[in-house]
């Protein structure tokens, strides 16, 4: 009940301010360019493959377009997700509206969940616009539906992890820029930690690979659903949400 109230209010705020429109524009331009360049590259390879049949092996739409496109979208999320979450608590604290919000008969958890769901819903809406590209592909090729669905599921889960991380930083400061910068930095760190996996040996390498947030996306994009990947994203999300809840509680004490 309370969650729904906060959810509706946040959705309204996204569209009442330029935030939602700015993010949609950015996302559509960038993802559109990614899609175009991947498509252009594949058609170039295809022309060469027509003359050199050796190249044609392993050339298909799923591996050639869908998979790299999803991984590229993951990169875009790195930049865009902090923009969705940075204001959610920081602005309320700065404007003082948090004081009123916290004196309504709402549990902290309801407020947090409402905000998280609003950010997730806006992100899901954003993601759904790329379905248009997939629709375009069906025009002249036969698409495998399954890897596309798992790919979207992976992106949704990845996005939720980023969003919860962003919420945590937004609850820690009253400065939106600081919240956004830290959310971006932390997301990037989770991304590049996998790079160390190749250098570190043995158990450390395995640990880094497991921690890497993008490592888990690749199997989704390949059409493989693995419990450990789902558990990784959900675990990350719940951990960050829990930390945010605690940070709200601490803030209450500090006043």
């Amino acid at each position: 009940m309370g969650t729904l109230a906060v959810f509706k209010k946040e959705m309204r705020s996204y569209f009442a301010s330029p935030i939602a429109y700015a993010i949609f524009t950015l996302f559509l331009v960038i993802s559109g360019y990614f899609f175009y360049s991947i498509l252009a590259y594949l058609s170039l390879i295809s022309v060469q493959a027509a003359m050199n049949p050796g190249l044609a092996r392993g050339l298909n739409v799923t591996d050639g377009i869908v998979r790299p496109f999803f991984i590229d979208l993951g990169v875009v999320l790195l930049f865009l997700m902090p923009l969705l979450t940075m204001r959610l608590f920081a602005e309320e604290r700065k404007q003082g509206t948090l004081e009123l919000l916290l004196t309504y008969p709402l549990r902290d958890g309801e407020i947090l969940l409402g905000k998280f769901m609003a950010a997730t819903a806006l992100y899901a809406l954003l993601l759904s616009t790329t379905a248009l590209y997939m629709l375009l592909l069906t025009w002249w090729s036969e698409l495998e539906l399954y890897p596309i669905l798992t790919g979207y599921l992976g992106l949704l889960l990845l996005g939720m992890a980023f969003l919860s991380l962003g919420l945590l930083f937004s609850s820690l400061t009253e400065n939106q820029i600081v919240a956004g910068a830290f959310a971006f930095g932390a997301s990037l760190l989770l991304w590049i930690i996998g790079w160390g996996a190749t250098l570190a040996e043995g158990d450390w390498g395995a640990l880094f690979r497991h921690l890497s947030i993008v490592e888990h996306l690749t199997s989704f994009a390949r059409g493989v659903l693995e419990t450990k990947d789902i558990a990784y994203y959900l675990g990350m999300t719940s951990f960050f949400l829990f930390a945010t809840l605690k940070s709200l509680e601490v803030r209450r004490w500090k006043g």
Partner: protein
Amino acid sequence: MIEVEGLTKVYGNTTAIDSLTFTVQQGEVVGFLGPNGAGKTTTMRVLSCYMPPTSGTARVGGYDIRTQALDVRRRIGYLPEHVPLYTDLTVTQYLSFVAEAKGLSRLTRRQRVGEAIERCLLQDARGRIIGKLSKGYRQRVGLAQALLGDPPILILDEPTIGLDPKQIIEIRSLIRDMQGKRTVILSTHILPEVSMVCQRVIIINEGRIVAVDTPETLTRRLQRSTQVLLQIDGPPDQVSVRLREAPGVLQVAMKDGAGALRRYLVETDKDRDLRQELARVVCTSGWGLLELRPVDMSLEDIFIRLVTEEPVTGE
């Protein structure tokens, strides 16, 4: 309705409020008075369950603010000091959100929002974006959100600040109308406001309660002498001398005026009404008496005396 016991809030190493104890009866309008930084806002924040106290406790509407915060919050309407509102929403959108957050049922929500808008005279601002509203309108939106859901207890931090005189009168009468129906705690800087709308005053300084009483008793208790103001048409030197000679007069001060027409402030013994005597002196001397009235000690005087001098203990 509100029972506060030993309420203390410490931020770092400053004590904002120090073991406050007071009660507010159902239907009472109580004014919270004190200089800046006295702890008014902190007290209100603790009572509205925005933050927990460091020690001590309070029961609001019969519920403990520490352990039953949600029950308390269901029964209060709170207006914080700087009226924080979501500036990107319209008045109706905002109030609908508040109604939903306060758990009003879907059926009554629209009606209640309409009522709150009417009661706070916001009809012509319904569809406007809050960020574009003037301070007076925002204050009223803040009041409207506090009144939504008909809470039996209202906690208002400086409800009339930033309003124009006409709006101040409207808001005050709104608060006065609540007497008997709702329990109201309000803080203010404007002292006459307290005697106008409050039945009781709690004066607080440096986190401690200095006095709790009705505005009238406070005035009486602290008054050391009675003052009478006269406007007399007569030779100033003679008038001053004659007035001072009257029995019971302690001091005479010439205030303003020009030529023969002057105002005099006469200080007399406490609890002694010298008005008749003074009038007779003026008349028998053949001067013109244009005005004669007792001057009450203003709440400002009391306030200054309380926060700068010794604490009041039943004199």
